[in-house]
């Protein structure tokens, strides 16, 4: 046991004395949360739009006022002709234009039917859809307002509630994703590199010719990374609570327990990679290509899995980050308890056990 602790201490020296590693370890979660939180957001805020109002009557003015009042949009100057509007689109200075035809109010009152043209810059389709939805809902609101006095025989009003995230903030989506990403990077890549480094520098050769069991060498290398990863989880959660104002809806204890499980999964993956590779570079490449890419693609945090072709959906099941992403979302955002996530937990346990056994089996007590 004394050997084990000495080994762990030595490992901490390695980490603490290597500034680059330290920067990656503790700078990365910080940077990712800030980048995703403030720069790479797909929330709509202050989108520049223009209004082409050929009607200039009561109804059009009222709708324009409501659009201007919402903080999704920032109303540009009035544009009167189409050419200038198109120019603005081409220059990219506006994302959406609302065009009222002449006699808008008249048509509405006398023919019971009027049209508004909504033109969006769909070079970013998601953004365009979101914007047009906002505009449509403002127009719908106005319509409801109008018809309140009229006695319509039948009316269906959809009551929409955005559960767990009523303001449609981006944070609830990316915080669990960033967590999975960072843990993947720290636990898989850093561990794999740290173990392979011993092989590459030849220290493994010396350690093998010692009473210290090789399996313990590997396990004691994993321990410091477990703690470092837990610190990362804590820093991400604290930042999401205090910087992004996203409180943890469920139990903190459960969140950390599940994170620990995922970290252990990642550590076994890292150990597995380290056993199979010989140089730090290869270990890094394998971790990046084999772990990071699937994590980004298949965890569901960037691209919804439901929209993927079936074979890819099947593949996504073996990506541990997918399950962890579901778990964290359930705990942090939906406030669920263990009863709702035991299945995902079980899958993670299975993956961990699998890689642990495979690693043990392929572990070599000699040089190749």
């Amino acid at each position, binding site marked *: 046991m004394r050997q084990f602790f000495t*080994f762990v201490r*030595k490992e901490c020296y*390695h980490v603490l004395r290597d500034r680059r590693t330290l920067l990656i370890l503790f700078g990365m979660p910080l940077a990712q949360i800030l980048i995703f939180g403030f720069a790479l957001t797909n929330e709509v805020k202050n989108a520049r739009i223009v209004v082409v109002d050929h009607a200039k009557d009561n109804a059009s003015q009222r709708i324009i006022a409501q659009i201007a009042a919402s903080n999704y949009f920032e109303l540009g100057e009035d544009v009167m002709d189409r050419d200038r509007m198109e120019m603005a689109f081409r220059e990219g200075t506006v994302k959406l234009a609302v065009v009222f035809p002449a006699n808008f109010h008249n048509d509405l009152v006398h023919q019971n039917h009027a049209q508004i043209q909504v033109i969006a810059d769909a070079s970013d389709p998601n953004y365009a859809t979101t914007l047009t939805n906002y505009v449509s809902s403002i127009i719908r609101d106005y319509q409801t307002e109008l018809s309140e006095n009229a006695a319509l025989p039948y009316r269906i009003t959809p009551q929409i509630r955005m559960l767990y995230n009523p303001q449609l903030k981006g944070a609830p989506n990316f915080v669990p994703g960033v967590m999975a990403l960072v843990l993947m990077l720290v636990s898989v890549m850093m561990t794999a590199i740290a173990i392979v480094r011993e092989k590459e520098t030849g220290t493994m*050769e*010396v350690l*093998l010719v*010692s009473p210290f069991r090789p399996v313990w060498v590997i396990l004691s290398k994993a321990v410091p990374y477990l703690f470092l990863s837990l610190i990362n989880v804590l820093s991400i959660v604290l930042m999401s609570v205090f910087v992004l104002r996203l409180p943890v809806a469920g139990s903190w204890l459960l969140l950390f327990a599940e994170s620990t499980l995922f970290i252990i999964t990642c550590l076994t993956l890292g150990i597995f990679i380290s056993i199979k590779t010989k140089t730090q570079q290869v270990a890094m490449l394998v971790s990046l290509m084999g772990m990071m890419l699937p994590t980004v693609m298949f965890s569901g945090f960037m691209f919804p899995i439901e929209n993927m072709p079936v074979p890819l959906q099947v593949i996504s099941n073996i990506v541990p980050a997918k399950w962890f992403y579901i778990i964290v979302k359930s705990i942090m955002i939906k406030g669920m308890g263990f009863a709702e996530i035991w299945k995902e937990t079980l899958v993670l346990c299975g993956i961990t056990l699998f890689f642990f056994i495979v690693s043990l089996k392929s572990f070599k007590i000699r040089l190749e």
Partner: protein
Amino acid sequence: MVTVNNITKTYNKGAVKAVDDVSFSVEKGELFGVIGPDGAGKSSIFRILTTLLLPDGGTATVDGHDVVKDYRYIRNHVGYMPGRFSLYQDLTIEENIQFFATVFNTTVAENHHLIEDIYIQLEPFKKRRAGKLSGGMKQKLALCCALIHKPTVLFLDEPTTGVDPVSRKEFWEMLKRLKQQGITVLVSTPYMDEATRCDRIALMQHGKILSIDSPQGIIRAYPGPLYAIKATDKPRITQALATHAPSFSSYIFGEYIHVDPQGVSSKYLTEELTTLLAKEGFREIEVMPITPTIEDCFIKMLTK
């Protein structure tokens, strides 16, 4: 203490024969040298004896234990210093020694007497990181770490490669003192001049042992006389010798040219060589009979 019986080791599925049917044994308390150029198979033998590699054929024992079956015993009782510097470069001297002491289930204090001589030289720098040490210092530190658990047999794979001449000399002095403490030492080196510092040596080439004996024994066994020529224009003299005395073998050896008359023995060979070279226009040369060095013996064995 160490026995090697018909050990064979191949790499790349038999394509490369690194160790070819090698046998030797080392007595307790002996300082045994394995000498040969790069690629002779020295490291492979050391790795087999330290249980890091499995031999393809043959058996070997260290301290009475089989290197394959009892690998755990051997790992507990031998000291091993690999050819490449294999300590933690980002740990200090002190931390490295303490780390290896703990890994080997001992403390620095317990076996301090063993490393005392070496550690005195390292002590002024004990807070310095291993990566910042000179080549000689690194090897001394590595030796300290390999010794810390009082091994019965010490395997040193090319400990003096890349080390300055002064440090090399010091290093061999240390090995001599270890031998006096009763530790069996196996050391490999590509430097032939270090061979005389061993009790016995095995000369190796292409995975085979050419000869095993004491350095003096190997030199004594050198067949025939050997001459040295001191001159300035060495390449042209060797050329002239090759044309005019084709049966002789001559090669540049440091400041000299060594000439092996290959069995031709004549009392007057010194004079004959001088006259021959004078005829070719080489003046101010000095020819003298010499005792061969280990390297001469090695060259002789290779040309046989």
